[in-house]
């Protein structure tokens, strides 16, 4: 079940909200757990058992790590091996076989498994919990239902953010439900829904038109690059907004996952603003334990490249994701070694252009199917003279999607937020906000009902 669906919006959500707010405080967590398991069962009826198994395993190893300090490292390693093992089996086995087969005469058969939705998100949450317990940063959770609720909590289950146990440890026991929090939750959820349905999906349609077309022109390559860049941002940040908003409706406060990444002035800055919960996870649980930057230069380079290769692989079992991760790793190394010193002297506008171009190229890699297509779509951006600058088809789509592109570009900056918060417009914004939210909700519903382009981008995560 995805948030941008009729089933979720007008059936699942009202039922769960009604039951949650009717029942006494004592059983609210239980209701949320049941709702979350149903939410997952609805899309993944078989794999819900896998998730339950993983939860039990995490729970038991959490207790063992806490109780037997002497062997806690061993238990931690076993628990990580189980979690990572399950993830590798379901997500990477066929990718590994495919690559081994390149060197074998007698090919190994692929295994017949479908990737369970959200496995990468909840596996990382489970690993972080056990590590935090091991490090003494989190108290072990003795109530399995509470731990199960943390891992399976439906707002963040299938598309993140990767909520740390330490963030909501206290909230599992005791959280407040206020009108203000609920209203803020509604606002975040509706804005997230609008970002996903009205911007990401519309621009995704433009990207898919490019991919299904044989038309070749520089303008079309740029339209594709810009549209996927905006699609991925609005889709992902829209999902995060919806998750944060739903969390608030049920009394939780999750950390922010995006912070206007397209106004970043360096790639280092970009990754402080993009999918914050994932980059901070890799920093805290891989990069720093490997020694971070407090090691020899060679090891530091190894650490960065390894972390970014893994970041890429986390997004999908395919070489383009590995290349995508390494691409960022290498640019981050360049920035840290010499580029940042140079960039400091460059005007902000040029720094932003630099980031936007690097990121656009990266998403062409991210969205590519095979090296040939990736090369073609990147080269097309600069093939001036070799292919037509403009074609009838690309010009048509530019005209047809220019408003959506403009909304996307403006919406990815804090401009509208700043205007709404400014003294001059604050009153008007306050007055118009409810109307604006209702319009977004109703129009998003109309797009969903029409059966418009509504992909779930995280099926490979």
């Amino acid at each position, binding site marked *: 079940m995805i948030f941008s669906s009729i089933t979720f*919006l007008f059936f699942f959500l009202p039922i769960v909200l009604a039951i949650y707010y009717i029942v006494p405080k004592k059983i609210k967590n239980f209701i949320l757990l049941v709702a979350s398991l149903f939410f997952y069962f609805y899309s993944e009826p078989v794999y819900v058992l896998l998730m339950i198994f993983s939860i039990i395993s995490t729970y038991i190893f959490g207790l063992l790590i806490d109780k037997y300090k002497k062997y806690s490292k061993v238990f931690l390693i076993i628990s990580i091996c189980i979690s990572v093992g399950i993830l590798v089996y379901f997500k990477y086995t066929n990718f590994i076989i495919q690559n081994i087969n390149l060197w074998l005469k007698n090919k190994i058969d692929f295994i017949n498994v479908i990737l369970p939705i959200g496995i990468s998100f909840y596996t990382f949450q489970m690993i972080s919990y056990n590590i935090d317990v091991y490090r003494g940063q989190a108290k072990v959770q003795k109530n399995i239902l509470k731990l199960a609720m943390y891992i399976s909590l439906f707002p963040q289950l299938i598309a993140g953010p990767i909520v740390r146990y330490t963030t909501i440890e206290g909230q599992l026991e005791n959280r407040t439900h206020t009108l203000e929090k609920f209203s803020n939750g509604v606002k975040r959820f509706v804005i997230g829904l609008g970002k996903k349905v009205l911007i990401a999906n519309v621009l995704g349609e433009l990207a898919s038109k490019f991919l299904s077309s044989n038309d070749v022109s520089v303008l079309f390559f740029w339209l594709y690059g810009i549209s996927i860049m905006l699609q991925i941002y609005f889709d992902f940040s829209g999902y995060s907004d919806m998750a944060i908003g739903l969390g608030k409706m049920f009394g939780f406060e999750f950390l922010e996952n995006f912070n206007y990444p397209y106004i970043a002035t360096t790639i280092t800055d970009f990754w402080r603003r993009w999918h914050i919960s994932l980059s901070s996870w890799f920093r805290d649980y891989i990069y720093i334990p490997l020694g971070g930057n407090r090691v020899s230069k060679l090891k530091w380079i190894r650490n960065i490249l390894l972390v970014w290769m893994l970041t890429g692989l986390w997004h999908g079992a395919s070489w383009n994701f590995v290349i995508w991760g390494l691409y960022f790793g290498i640019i981050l190394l360049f920035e840290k070694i010499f580029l940042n010193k140079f960039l400091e002297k460059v005007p902000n506008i040029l720094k932003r252009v630099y980031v936007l171009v690097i990121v656009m190229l990266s998403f062409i890699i991210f969205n590519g199917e095979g090296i040939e297509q990736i090369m073609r779509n990147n080269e097309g951006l600069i093939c001036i003279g070799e292919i037509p600058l403009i074609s009838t088809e690309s010009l*048509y789509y530019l*005209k*047809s*999607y220019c408003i959506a592109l403009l909304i996307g570009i403006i919406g990815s900056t804090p401009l509208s937020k700043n205007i709404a918060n400014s003294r001059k417009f604050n009153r008007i914004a306050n007055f118009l*906000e409810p109307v604006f939210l209702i319009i977004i909700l109703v129009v998003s519903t109309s797009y969903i*009902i*029409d059966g418009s382009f509504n992909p779930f981008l995280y099926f490979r995560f």
Partner: protein
Amino acid sequence: MKGNKAKDAIVTIAFLIILFSVFIINIVVKDKTISASERRRLASFPKITKSEVMTGKLSEKFEKYFSDQFVGRDFFRSLKTVWNFNVFRQKDNNELFVKDNSIYKMEYKLKEKNIKKSAEKINEIYNKYLKNMKVYYSIIPDKNYYLEKDDHLKMDYEKIKDIMSQNLSNIKYIDIWDELDLNDYYRTDLHWKQEKLDDVVMCIKENMNLENTDFAKYDVKDKGEFYGAYYGQLGMKVKPDNLYILTNEELEKCVTYNFETNQIGKVYQTPRTSDKYDIYLSGAVPLLRIENPNSKSNKELILFRDSFGSSLAPLLLDSYSKITLVDIRYMSSKNLDQYIEFNGQDVLFLYSSLVLNQNILR
């Protein structure tokens, strides 16, 4: 602070009212079986079986069901279209667009392979059944061809003609493109209007050496407003045309025979579907014979056609005693001689550019 509290209350209450009222209304209101505007059967409540649940198919079916049966579905579809055109200023909505109160569908990607395959299919039929017979073909352009000063994407129409003529050199081509204009097509549908086909009929008859028809001999009967296929697909209000039929005593005495259902009928029959255009020869029928008992001629015609042929064929009946209409989108052309005796009839292949571009001739 007071203002914020009031705003919080308004946002919360409005959200909950929308969520719960939509939920309750959708539970209470009875399901529909058919959507008149979309001309299709709506999804019904899915059967819940163990295998459907465990394979995850049930969730897909539920999503389809909830979306199809959503109360106010037509309103929401219209809202989406209006938003797309007026807020996003998109030039088309699901490839449909409105110009001068007419709806058009962009069929812009010319699929050369499909056109070639369509031509090959016609050649195959010619070589198998039609050698030494008088055989003609004609192409009906979709109405976008006649749109002027418009930047929506269009097919390369000349290329269709070129590919067809290169591949059908042994069959005579009848060019009807200059005999039509935008007013000859329905505003909300892809089809042409029967009452506007005088020039087309004249052109075809001239090329096939048939006696010309005086259109004054037909009575024009108004069958009321016609909301075409594009109307439902677009989901936006556009003024409809009226649908007319051209008839007279001779046509009313003609008898049709449906090979598939063994049913005898008339040239014009009240349609059983929600598509009013089906009044012409009962709509989509794989193999149909029309007999004209009052024909002054003994000639017969075999018309390989798509839906455009349904409204044209009655206007050729005054030149033939029998017309056999073959729609090889719905039947295979491999065993046609089981049903039709090929013995010197006139043969006309009449296909729209839309059909030729799809590779659906079997």
